[in-house]
């Protein structure tokens, strides 16, 4: 008898909860979709009509030619290629070196551990604008100005990545590593065979952030890549704003096009965010 009552009231609670969830999700989706719709609709207009009020959500004469013009006005194809190249290399390096270093900070004990870690984190607090000039002069001294290598060197060794991975590694029980050590594994094997596979959600997170960060990076490429054939997407977008005119219709069209690869990467990583993956290992 009692079990029946519990099931009934918990079912009502379930439905209330579910409807509340859908309502909130719906509202937040609306909040994010309205701007995106405006972007789409502006991408089909001439600049002079983009900011006209009242907002014309569905343009009367959609300029599909905008999507053709963006490839002709600036070498967008080249820029996308450059950005993709940089993004892939930086993301890979970041994931490798960060997870490597994070293992030591999370699971090993060594001299100066706390100081080094604090060193790492505190540098994240320094705004880039401050050391940009000394860094630029130094890179120029290394003859790295106007090379993609410069951007890679600046972005691939990230303190942020180390911090992120270390936090996730902390949630993996120490007993696992102990058991592996007793089994005779060395630290490198423990990292490769145990830590890496268990941290798929964390690695996916780092991948997404590194990918998006490099894909949308603006200040770095602006300073270091002045030769047109080396430039990246974000610099390209700003080329639509010249001294005497601005082409926001084209900027919106290009922004929409450039968004697609990122969304593809994001969607394909979703399978690592399915609940219940990391529950294994405790029973051992």
């Amino acid at each position: 008898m009692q079990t029946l009552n519990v099931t009934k009231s918990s079912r009502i609670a379930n439905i209330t909860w579910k409807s509340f969830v859908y309502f909130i999700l719906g509202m937040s989706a609306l909040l994010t979709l309205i701007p995106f719709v405006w972007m789409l609709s502006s991408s089909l207009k001439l600049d002079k009509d983009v900011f006209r009020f009242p907002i014309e959500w569905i343009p009367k004469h959609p300029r599909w030619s905008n999507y053709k013009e963006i490839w002709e006005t600036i070498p967008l194809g080249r820029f996308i290629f450059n950005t993709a190249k940089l993004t892939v290399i930086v993301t890979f390096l970041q994931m490798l070196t960060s997870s490597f270093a994070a293992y030591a900070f999370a699971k090993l004990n060594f001299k100066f551990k706390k100081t080094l870690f604090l060193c790492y984190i505190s540098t994240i607090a320094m705004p880039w604008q401050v050391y940009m000039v000394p860094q630029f002069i130094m890179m120029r001294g290394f003859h790295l100005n106007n090379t993609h290598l410069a951007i890679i060197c600046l972005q691939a060794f990230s303190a942020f990545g180390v911090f992120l991975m270390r936090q996730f590694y902390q949630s993996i029980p120490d007993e696992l590593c102990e058991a592996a050590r007793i089994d005779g594994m060395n630290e490198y094997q423990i990292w490769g065979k145990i830590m890496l596979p268990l941290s798929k959600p964390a690695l996916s997170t780092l991948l997404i952030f590194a990918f998006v960060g490099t894909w949308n990076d603006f200040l770095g490429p602006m300073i270091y890549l002045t030769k047109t054939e080396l430039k990246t997407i974000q610099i390209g977008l700003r080329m639509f704003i010249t001294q005497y005119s601005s082409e926001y219709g084209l900027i919106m069209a290009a922004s929409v096009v450039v968004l697609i690869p990122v969304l593809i990467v994001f969607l394909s990583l979703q399978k690592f965010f399915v609940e219940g993956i990391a529950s294994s290992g405790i029973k051992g």
Partner: protein
Amino acid sequence: MALVLSAGMVFANGQKEAPAAKGPVTLKWALWDYAQTVYYKPLIEAFEAENPNIKIEPLDLGSTDYQTMLSTQLTGGDSSIDVVTIKDIPGYATLVKAGQLVNLNDYVKAKKINLAQYNGGAEQMTVNGNLYELPFRSDFRIVYYNKDVFDKAGEKYPTNDMTWAQYDALARKMTSGSGAAKVYGNHYHTWRSIVQCEAILDGKNTVVNPPYDFMKPYYERVLNEQQDGICMDYAQLKTTSTHYSGVFYNNSVAMMEMGSWFISTLSNQIAQGKTEVKNWGIVKLPHADGVKAGTTVGTITGIAVSNASKKKDAALAFAAFLTSEKGATVLAKTGNYPGIMNDNIAGILSGMKGFPQDAASKEALKTTKLYLEIAYSDKALQIDAALNRAHDSIMTKNCTLDEGIAQMNKDVKDILSK
């Protein structure tokens, strides 16, 4: 430790390069909007044709943040850039103050360059008797008006000799309609110079010398027009980054103060069918009582040579070419306004396709006196920033006009006293 020391040495000494080899010389030219500007290629080709052993390599630093980019690239005595284009006085002042430009006095004397051909431009660029850049482009402010809108309202076109009061009255007559069909009598772009520089045209004050109370009547006129809906709301324009070209193309405004550079853009856009406006004209900027018609605001884009360049001779020759009558003719043929203005150049410009063919428009090109948007001051960049802040506050009604002017006075006095 060793790292910091070696880094320090790099900063202190800049780069030490081997001396340039003999043979074809390549000059790097810092500029902006390379692909979108029509005159760079013809100028480079013309120069290379005359000087076969010099090649010019353009370096596009982008228009937004151009000065920041340029100064950053030149830090620490960088020698990779030879010739620089300088957008405006604040940029010029920054570079001169940092000692990054070559002093052109000797070169000008040796090559007997006639500075008078720049109609006073060179004098306004001279700092303590030294000239560091030559005027490449000189644009001046005029009034653009929409002939179709005037015809529809049955009003007479603006003339080449109006006072500010008459300009205001005409704008009020021309404002009509509401909502999407509204026509505004006037349009003021969001730059502070649009309003503030109207005030310097009697020659009694400059933008770099407080107190700024002389700007009051001009601000009052514009603020009143804004209040009465004669022109668009500044806050609106600022937050949507609305470009002045768009509102003119849409037949939404009857008149607009803007620089001469807009003439070729406007003609091009009309020719491509991207606008609703079809018939337009220009007249001289209105003037205060007692000031001659044809007195207007000017901006000069200059060409200079980097002090750290290893190819100064070639760079100077190129700079001289760009600012000579030859270079000016190439510029004029593309519809752009060079630093040199004489009847020959004016003829080319008014003969351009799309240039309004009425007599008043042709007459509008004849300026009598040009005052620079911002006079030379080695604190020009900071003064510009302070004035921008105050302008923003005043026009968005976040402070009263008196408070805004008081703030301007205080901020600039502080800057000048440091």
